[in-house]
């Protein structure tokens, strides 16, 4: 097998630590946290070879990994841009203009919901309630919550993300102004 993905030694160490959180023989519990690590490690999505690698390090059958990865909405089973924009679309955000925010981003980036920009930087996704209803409308990119969105705020966030050009993950440091 060519280009078989491998975890760096540091991540393997972390995986061992995660496995030690559960009683002997119950290491399957490490699956969700390890899938998050794998996704952050391998370009923001879980390819079949990456899921097979997770199965190998956790001593699981590959099907046990696939069935979990396909159940939860945070695991991407297709490639995504460096910055996955997850815009909340549920009631409280909708009441405060989430639809307009989605349309604005679509127009600005020239993509529809679910698509990735040609330069591979942005993917736009709408998601269900992220628990930021009091600071609606909002979107999340990596671990960062961007709240009280306005068109101007969206402009500056997208500009900032584009100029950084870095892949955003759930393990990023975040700025928390509101909370």
């Amino acid at each position: 097998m060519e280009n078989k993905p491998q975890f760096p030694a540091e991540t393997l160490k972390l995986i061992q630590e995660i496995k030690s959180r559960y009683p002997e023989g119950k290491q399957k519990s490490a699956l969700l946290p390890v899938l998050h690590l794998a996704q952050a490690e391998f370009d923001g999505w879980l390819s079949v070879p990456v899921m097979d690698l997770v199965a190998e390090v956790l001593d699981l059958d590959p099907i046990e990994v696939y069935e979990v990865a396909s159940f939860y909405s945070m695991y991407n089973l297709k490639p995504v841009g460096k910055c996955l924009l997850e815009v909340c679309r549920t009631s409280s955000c909708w009441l405060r203009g989430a639809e307009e925010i989605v349309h604005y981003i679509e127009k600005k980036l020239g993509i529809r919901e679910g698509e990735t920009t040609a330069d591979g930087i942005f993917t736009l996704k709408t998601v269900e309630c992220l628990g930021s209803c009091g600071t609606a409308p909002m979107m999340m990119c990596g671990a960062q919550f961007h709240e009280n969105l306005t068109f101007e705020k969206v402009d500056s966030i997208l500009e900032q993300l584009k100029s950084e050009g870095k892949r955003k993950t759930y393990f990023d440091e975040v700025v928390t102004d509101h909370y």
Partner: protein
Amino acid sequence: MVRKLLLANDHIPGIQGYEVYRKNGGYKSVEKAMKTMTPEAVVEEVKKSGLRGRGGAGFPTGMKWSFLAKPEGVPRYLVCNADESEPGTFKDRYLMSRIPHILIEGMITSSFALGANTSYIYVRGEYYYIIRILEKAIQEAYAAGWLGKNILGTGYNLDLYVQPGGGAYICGEETALLESLEGKRGNPRIKPPFPAVKGVWGCPTVVNNVETIAAVVPIVNDGGEEYAKIGIGRSTGTKLISASGHINKPGVYEIELGVPVEEFIYSEQYCGGILNNRKLKAVVAGGSSVPILPADLILKTAAGENRLMTYESLAEGGFASGTMLGSGGFIVMDESTSIVKNLWNFARFYHHESCGQCSPCREGTGWMEKILHKMVHGHGETKDIELLWDLQRKIEGNTICPLGDAAAWPVASAIRHFRQEFEECVMEEKIKNSIQF
């Protein structure tokens, strides 16, 4: 003067860190419980307090704790439900990010009461930054000797870990959460057996919401009777309310249970009235799952009494004219809101989040979303209103977990209280179509 128990120290700079938290009375409940009380006595205080589950179900916490099976030689677990996903609810995120140590302290005191030596906080994956805040707080607690082996020289050991979810509303249901903690899909289990008998890895387990666990801290510090003095009747203590929607001051408010709904919406102390001086149209008082009520019924009961923020008062009138306190996710809608469109939004949510295990929910939520999509986009027919009504009735009560009910109630209540709007939605289309022809 409103009494605050969980957010009393919210204004203190640096309260997120261990030193400041400890200086302001933090971890006293652990000292008190472990040095002066037996685990049974702690359970007794929680029973006396009248504390009810703050995640949404409102089940008495002390009673839930007393159901925990204690077979010889089998480990017991405490799992904190921080999977906060009920639309309109963001209080747990607020509490965990502002005062993470109150949850850690509550977990230690509660684990001691239940005889758990390993406990987990299951946090929804989207709150990854909260996970890091909690992990830091846990490290600080270990360093200060509140966690680990032989805590305070009592011989009691406790390890505490944070577990991330993967993005699934259903994992807020306690048995789905346990499945997820075991590294599986979040499919709810059939009850019985209840988690108190057979929970995570088949062992006796208590699952409690973040706010419930945090409330154990003041209950142990001040005594259950003192806690029970706050509130009205069986709604004791304080409650975190997440206020959102068309209001001037959205945010998290700690209220003494019993505040009039009208005061909560209009006073400067809380929501500060309706945005842009518009009129109030409707409120979803306890997270998206509870029945929506029109302005007149949320402010006053059908009998004309002032509606209060308590479990009982909000439920007054049953589902015919009442609702539920639920998670305290208080969504306010002004006169410009389309109830039909909001319902489509909710229906899409439940369809997206149904785990797919039970046919009535898997198929029914899809149908409801489709019909409402049709209505909202101008292709509805009069018979669709009856079809929606029929569908929700066939889901309610016919599924393993309450997600089915949670998907049905918003539909039933919206049609019950706003039927005219559905009729207009269908009518308008007929008129438009006739003009086109």
